[in-house]
């Protein structure tokens, strides 16, 4: 990445942090009072963003699958970047979902009074499992370089690198082989854990019997494919920007194309089954997606800019890495619309006939538009993630594509 682009992005992240601080201050002082969602649409923009980052974290999952399940050697060198990206995405995820809690100071309750009949508890367990796996994986992938950097007299912050390497001052061939084994083991473990994590997030919505679109066996599968699609697209963009590896970008582009086709097919099935079944609530929710106030987020943002255009770019420009990277960038940027259209319409349908005509209060309505506070808090969290990623990319050995890195990822 060029220095000017890097500085520009750092500047944007800092600006975002500053602007978002106003929203964060309101959130911390007044709880959920400043938000626009209410009791009939109890989840809003922050949950949509949570799902968005959940998907982005699946990039490494895709890389792991291709590298260790399909034994595609070329993906091994992406190990560091992918693992670090997961860590940042998980950080954003946890920030969004914690800020969404009405009483976030009680998050410790997950540990002392958990209910294992709740899929939210399992999400908490699997989230932490993913966090631990990818923190360890990142550590063992970069440890060799951390030790080397801590001894490099030309490098600033050698003490910090020594601290991050947990005081290790020598890195032998034996250490190298052992770390390689650990990373391999962690990658294999991350497969079932990742599948369960992404699947559980889908099942979290699918088990709710009164929610016509969510309540489907298709939902967990849709979540897995959505995660692979958005995460894969993100990794493709990052590979193009940070590693400049054309064959790898093209290979990732093909995988993303496959995920995009699968996702659009599943989405089409969802609409087809919903409209054919003709259950009034389901049709009402689908109509809200396709013809409601936010129709443009579905037709223009998601299907046009995030579906059709990337599809054409990936098909027609499959050998052109810039075209592939642009296609993937479009998928990443527009995927938040997919998440928004998943969360809101199913909530925005009254579940009891006549409820809309009684007891008027803004918190008891199904019309929902995220307000400034929600956007500012979102901006703050995204800026934290962007800043953490950029600083890591600059000061940690996560994007280097040297031979050591390649071997480590094996």
């Amino acid at each position, binding site marked *: 990445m060029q220095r000017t682009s890097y500085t520009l992005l750092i500047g944007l992240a800092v600006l975002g942090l500053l602007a978002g601080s106003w929203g964060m201050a309101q959130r911390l002082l007044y*709880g959920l009072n400043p938000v626009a969602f209410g009791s009939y649409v*109890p989840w809003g923009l922050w949950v949509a963003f949570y799902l968005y980052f959940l998907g982005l974290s699946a990039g490494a999952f895709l890389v792991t699958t291709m590298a260790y399940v399909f034994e595609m050697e070329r993906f091994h060198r992406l190990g560091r970047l992918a693992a670090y990206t997961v860590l940042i995405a998980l950080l954003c995820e946890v920030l969004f979902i914690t800020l969404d809690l009405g009483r976030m100071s009680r*998050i410790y309750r997950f540990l002392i009074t958990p209910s294992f009949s709740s899929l939210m508890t399992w999400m908490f367990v699997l989230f932490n499992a993913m966090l631990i796996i990818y923190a360890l994986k990142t550590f063992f992938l970069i440890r060799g370089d951390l030790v080397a950097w801590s001894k490099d007299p030309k490098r600033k912050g050698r003490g910090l690198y020594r601290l991050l390497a947990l005081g290790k001052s020598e890195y032998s061939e034996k250490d190298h082989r052992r770390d390689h084994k650990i990373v391999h083991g962690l990658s294999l473990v991350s497969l079932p854990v990742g599948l369960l994590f992404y699947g559980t997030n889908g099942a979290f919505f699918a088990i709710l019997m*009164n929610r016509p679109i969510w309540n489907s066996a298709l939902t967990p599968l849709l979540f897995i494919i959505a995660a692979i699609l958005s995460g894969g697209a993100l990794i493709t963009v990052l590979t193009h920007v940070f590693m400049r590896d054309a064959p790898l970008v093209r290979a990732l582009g093909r995988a993303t194309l496959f995920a995009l086709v699968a996702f659009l097919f599943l989405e089409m099935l969802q609409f087809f089954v919903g409209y054919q079944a003709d259950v009034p609530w389901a049709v009402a929710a689908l109509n809200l997606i396709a013809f409601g106030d936010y129709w443009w987020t579905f037709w223009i943002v998601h299907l046009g800019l995030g579906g059709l255009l990337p599809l054409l770019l990936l098909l027609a420009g499959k050998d052109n890495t810039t075209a592939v990277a642009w296609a993937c960038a479009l998928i990443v940027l527009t995927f938040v619309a997919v998440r928004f259209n998943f969360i809101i319409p199913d909530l925005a349908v009254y579940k009891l006939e006549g409820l809309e005509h009684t007891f008027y209060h803004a918190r008891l309505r199904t019309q929902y538009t995220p307000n400034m506070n929600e956007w500012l808090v979102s901006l703050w969290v995204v800026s934290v993630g962007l800043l953490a990623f950029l600083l890591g990319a600059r000061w940690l050995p996560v994007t280097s594509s040297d031979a050591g890195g390649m071997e480590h990822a094996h």
Partner: protein
Amino acid sequence: MGKVLPSEDVLIRMQRDVKRALQRNAKDVRWTMVIDLGKCTGCHSCTLGCVSENKLPPGVVYRLVIEEEIGRYPSVRRRFLPRPCMHCQNPPCTKVCPVTATYANGQGVVVVDYNRCIGCRYCLVACPYSARTSDFGEWYTRGTPEAPQILVGKTAAAQAYEAKPSTEYGKKWPVRGHGSPIGNARKCHFCLHRLAVGMLPACVTTCTARATFFGDRNDPQSLVYELLGSPRLFQLKPELGTHPAVYYLK
């Protein structure tokens, strides 16, 4: 000459039913509500009684009355459907709570532990009857003026209602600031704090049409036990298998 007027108000009988239930083993009691839609006049007294009893803030409602218009002009009718929490015997809301903050108590009443609830609102999403609301920390008097010697003023107005502690679940909840139940899921609890001292739920006593009945369905002498045998009996969304403890009479 046939009997024209009832010899006693049903409230008196239900009061006796509640007192009798309190003398029984608590594990054997199953609190149940029956609402006669044929009698409901849509006066909303139950809603107001509940709001007042539980000191509910704006945007939080436990028992509202849904007004439904049926038919097309000139053949139109209006139907009123009071909707408290259904206190399901197979509640979808309790299963999804990640921290066991909501559960059915020994008498089948679905309750919320305000000091445990994390405010994730998963239970709100899971409830098929939209019977739960979240407390977003609203105040009726927020934004109203303080004008001494001209108006009563917001402080005085608040002291008369929303600055008073709610007594839900038999506790005195502190003046609304940042503490619970702000940020929590809230719902109808059959006025457990009133039942504990032998009083009927506020919505039952305030029902001007005497359309709401309450008691222990396991007590053969109770009024609700009798009403549960009515051929007019039905439940909301029975196809979901939630088995509500709130029944309706057509």
